[in-house]
């Protein structure tokens, strides 16, 4: 009875979530994107040091549809989107659930800067269709969503919010701690959405490095109301470099005693044909948290693993 009551409490959130997903679909269909579906069960995920896949009968559940979607780009589908369940082992907290929903979309012929703009347009469109014009209320704060949103490079974010510089943070292996404890908590105070961009290249295994600085990846993250909502790249299209990056990730995984994944050979051989593109992954559950004013991801999914 208690469980049933808890699930019934989510009624408004689940209605808003459904309307939100419809608005997302409408946005992409209007812009001539093709909705695609790629398999959840794959021989291996993209090897990344900090993302753990859940084994499934000798293969793995995908941690994101990235590799398959890029193979579609390479095969001549220039504008594609997908809303799919993804799975990541060991991730559970107020903003994390091991089975979650990602929206990914890819556009050829643009880079990550133009992708920021499309990301703004999507969220403004969804907000408007849910009745929010110009602002969203989230956890007692007003977020001003009039565009353009704030753009801060990671280097500047360290300069602005942390006594430690980006270089020192990387040298002392404290990037993640400073990002989580100092920078993300200060970004919450910004009353506008924030794009953090230009990450150290080791934190973007599938992103293109900047022409002007090979140590920096053309990657951005979108934060709203303290929620990290989306991650995007100018996609790396150099197959040789991609192989080296994956090998580095595998070495790091092996060193920390983690499972290593098979090298995605089909993806690597087709990558050569992939046009210059930008792609983005947006957490649908997190976006639903924002639009339902929820502090917990539990409130925007019908069932958490604990409720099964």
């Amino acid at each position, binding site marked *: 009875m208690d469980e049933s009551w808890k699930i019934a409490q989510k009624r408004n959130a689940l209605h808003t979530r459904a309307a939100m997903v419809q608005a997302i679909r409408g946005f992409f269909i209007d812009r001539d994107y093709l909705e695609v579906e790629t398999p959840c069960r794959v021989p291996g995920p993209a090897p*990344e040091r*900090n*993302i753990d896949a859940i084994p499934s009968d000798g293969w793995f559940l995908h941690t994101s549809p990235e590799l398959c979607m890029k193979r579609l780009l390479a095969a001549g589908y220039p504008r594609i989107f997908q809303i799919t369940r993804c799975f990541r082992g*060991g*991730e*559970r*907290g*107020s*903003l*994390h659930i091991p089975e979650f929903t990602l929206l990914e979309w890819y556009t050829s012929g643009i880079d990550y800067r133009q992708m920021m703009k499309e990301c703004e347009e999507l969220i403004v469109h969804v907000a408007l269709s849910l009745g929010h014009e110009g602002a969203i209320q989230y956890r007692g704060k007003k977020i001003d969503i009039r565009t353009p949103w704030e753009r801060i490079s990671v280097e500047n974010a360290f300069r602005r919010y942390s006594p430690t510089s980006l270089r020192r943070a990387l040298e002392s292996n404290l*990037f*993640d*701690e400073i*990002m*989580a*404890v100092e920078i*993300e908590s200060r970004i919450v105070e910004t009353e506008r959405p924030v794009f953090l961009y230009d*990450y150290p290249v080791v*934190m*973007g*295994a599938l992103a293109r490095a900047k022409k002007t600085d090979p140590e920096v990846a053309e990657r951005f*993250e979108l934060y709203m109301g303290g929620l*990290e909502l989306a*991650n995007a790249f100018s996609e790396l299209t150099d197959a040789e470099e991609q192989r080296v990056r994956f090998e580095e990730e595998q070495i790091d995984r092996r060193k*920390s005693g983690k499972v290593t994944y098979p090298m995605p050979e089909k993806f690597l051989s087709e990558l050569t044909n992939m046009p210059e593109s930008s792609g983005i992954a947006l957490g649908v559950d997190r976006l639903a948290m924002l639009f339902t004013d929820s502090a917990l991801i539990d409130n925007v999914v019908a069932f958490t693993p604990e409720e099964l």
Partner: protein
Amino acid sequence: MYNASDLRKNLKIQIDGDPYVIVEFTFSKPGKGQSLYRCKLKNMINGNQFERTFRSVETFEPANLQEKKMQYLYEEDSQYCFMDTETYEQVYLTDEQVGDAKNYMSDNLDVEILFFGEKPLGITLPNFVDLKVTKAEPWAKGDSVTGRTKPIEVETAYVLQAPPFVEEGEKIRIDTRTGEYLTRVKE
């Protein structure tokens, strides 16, 4: 041994030889970064608190805690004395360690005492205790029974709200988790 992924609120772990309880817990994972386990920890001996962020490779010793059944004997100078009824061993807790539990402790009450090694740290009460009412306004017959309450005092000097028909000298049952009146009990 606990892994970082076992950390959660109220878990008790040992750090530098002292027992700590996790009073606040946040899992975070900045984009493409490592899993981080952010904890606010409270030292169970001296009450000091601090925050620390752990990575997934870290492991933790469970705090070496035991609960022992003991009987409450008496209070003197803000020291509370408990006895193991089998070995007759006696231990003392301070006013601070006993906390609100003192509201519900009548002599000879059976309780659980939490030990870190030989050191007593705290007390767990039974969920329900029966206590004698020492002060209550008399009930004027004819007063409506429904909805109204009055303050009463029990033998531990604890004051709570009870229905108007509860009288001095009676025994009542209290829920120690909420501190609220439950029912009258026959002697």
